[in-house]
């Protein structure tokens, strides 16, 4: 049962990482337009977004 001493913190840390990742996606508004983002990856030209790029 000594293995639990490693496994339990590991599981907690991994799940905690998942929580942090979710909070980040939430904060960066990635759930605001699920339909639109699904279509956007199919767009051939990213010219619309490129305008925002400094280079």
């Amino acid at each position: 049962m000594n293995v639990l001493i490693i496994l339990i913190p590991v599981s907690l840390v991994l799940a905690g990482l998942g929580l942090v990742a979710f909070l980040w996606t939430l904060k960066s508004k990635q759930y605001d337009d699920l339909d639109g983002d699904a279509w956007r990856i199919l767009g051939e030209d990213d010219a619309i977004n490129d305008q925002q790029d400094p280079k």
Partner: protein
Amino acid sequence: MSISACPACSAAPLAIEIAAKSAVAGDIILSLPSIHCAGCIGTVERALMAVNGVTEARVNLSRKRVTIAATGIAPEQFIETLEAVGYEAHILDAPMMASVDTDSEGRKLLLRIAVAGFAMMNVMLFSVAVWSGAAEATQKMFHWLSALIAVPALAFSAQVFFRHAWQSLRVGSLNMDVPISLAIILAAGLSVYETSVGGESVYFDAALSLTFFLLVGRYLDHRTRIAARSAAQELSALASPNAVLLVDGAQRTVPVTTLNVGDLIRVHVGMRVPVDGAVTHGGSDMDRSFLTGESLPVHVSLGDQIAAGEVNLTGPLTLRVTAVGEDTTLARMAALVETAEGARNKYTALADRAAQIYAPAVHLLAFVTFIGWFVLSRDAALALNIAISVLIITCPCALGLAVPAVMTTATGRLFRRGLLVKNGTALERLSQIDTVVFDKTGTLTEGHARIDTAAMDQTTLALLAALARASNHPVSKAIAAALPTLNSANITDVTEHAGQGIAANWQGQSVRLGSGKWLGCSQSPALKIGDAPAIPLHFSETLRIGAIEAIAALKSAGIPVHIFSGDTTEAVDTLAAKLDVTSAHAQMLPADKMARIKQLSDDGAKVLMIGDGLNDTGALAQAYASISPASALDASRAASDIVLLSRSLAEIPDAIRTAKSARLRVLENFGIAAAYNLVAVPVAILGFASPLSAAIAMSASSITVLVNALRVK
């Protein structure tokens, strides 16, 4: 840009960055009901970015809207730009639209859901170990670990319920949050106690999954509620704050509140009349669409009564004030609308009615269980333990999801068909309606009257176009707008006769366009060429797309249809005949419409009102449920439950069907929740409930309810 194997990957971070910047105050948000694919996104964004001054345009396909960051450009210009590339666009109330974008409450709820979900999954992992036989020291350690995760997670996530429950208890009432909070607190408290004494019935996982599912329900519920604004306030906002007072011939701008009955005021062209009054000097054309629904302006001259809120279109007027403040027509209408809105807000949602029965029943059941076990066993700890397990088992997990899950599915489905549901209880009310009332102008028809040119020859048309274009009168403008492609005839010596019409010379003959009285014709307006009898000009209105289909579908579903219009009897009858509607009422004032709907309601009918004008605002607020097109005025949209974003009316019968289906699903969900309780409660009361059975009952009932919600058609 960095080189990346997949263009989407390199674009995605940028997209996120742009999205995160969206919806800053001052941005323009337009509703785009017809967008549906990647091509649409590209076309719309490119078209808008091409406009000078636009720094950013971002389409949100899920919400069918675009957020534009631009300085010094009117939203109307973007609507034109978008129409040029083939997309219909509307301005919707910015606060209403923004409420979802800058929705901090929704975000907080999501955060709580995330924490509850995280804790739930971890605690369940430990619970599985315990259920599958971990004993002694291992079991104790797992229980302590669960407590370590669950207690802080619950303290954070379940706050929403605690706060609402406390608010409700403070005023001495019971809502759904009271049994929820009680179950969560007792489950956590009992579990901590059991853990500390090394007992077995530890309910951390149940408490967390309860919190998680209920928060999901709460979040869905939150999303279907859009910050509603009062139509009465919108109406009051139409009143102008200042008036031009005439004192001994001198003009002075004074606040409206200082005016008295009998004062003389001046109303310049383009001004909204601040108070009710009678014309003492001058003549003009007034836009009184908010009172009558009539799209064409009305001529006023000496002695005529003018109501507050009308807009002076063509000439300066002097008025003697006849009513101020609360007594003006506008203020009286706002008061009527406010009363009607108040009555509607009293509607109790199905979920609340269920809670009113449920909450006391659950508490009573738990209390009786405690007494029963205490009497039988004389063991207070055991009795308390079982009573708490009853509270946990009966906790309205499925009940909390029953309504929001269905409503989210239904509003999503309606949104895809172009109907924006604004009010949380709108669908429930819509499902019960048994009578439909339509407004005419702007609802059944496209709103702008078009001149009927079928009976005229080329020369007449050319003359009409020439005369109409020579005048600035609103009626002439409407005529000219209807004849855009025609070459005008060559006319000379154009003279305008105020209040009568316009005259000119054409090939030696006198040609006149103006009021019927002036030209010796029974109808207004008319056209007179030389000495020939005047030709009356008929205005015909284009039917809105889907009007015929919508009415036919409603009638075949056995729902009676009425038309209430402020327009002339002739215009209404023509339209009613075209649409095969037998009950059509013309020349109704706003108060008449309200009174008729009230009468219908008093006779037991549940009326759905569909209208767009300011004159419909009262009727929209009075009706059991109401719909207005996106082209409607702010006050009317505020008064209605559902905004029709697409141009077609054909979706309305479908919307009613969806609402009925949604109501059925809600009732089924209540049934499912009750059935689970019927099985689980006796088990709990008899003292056989274990943490495992509580977890299974809770998850299974919640999932069944969610799946059932997806069946909404």
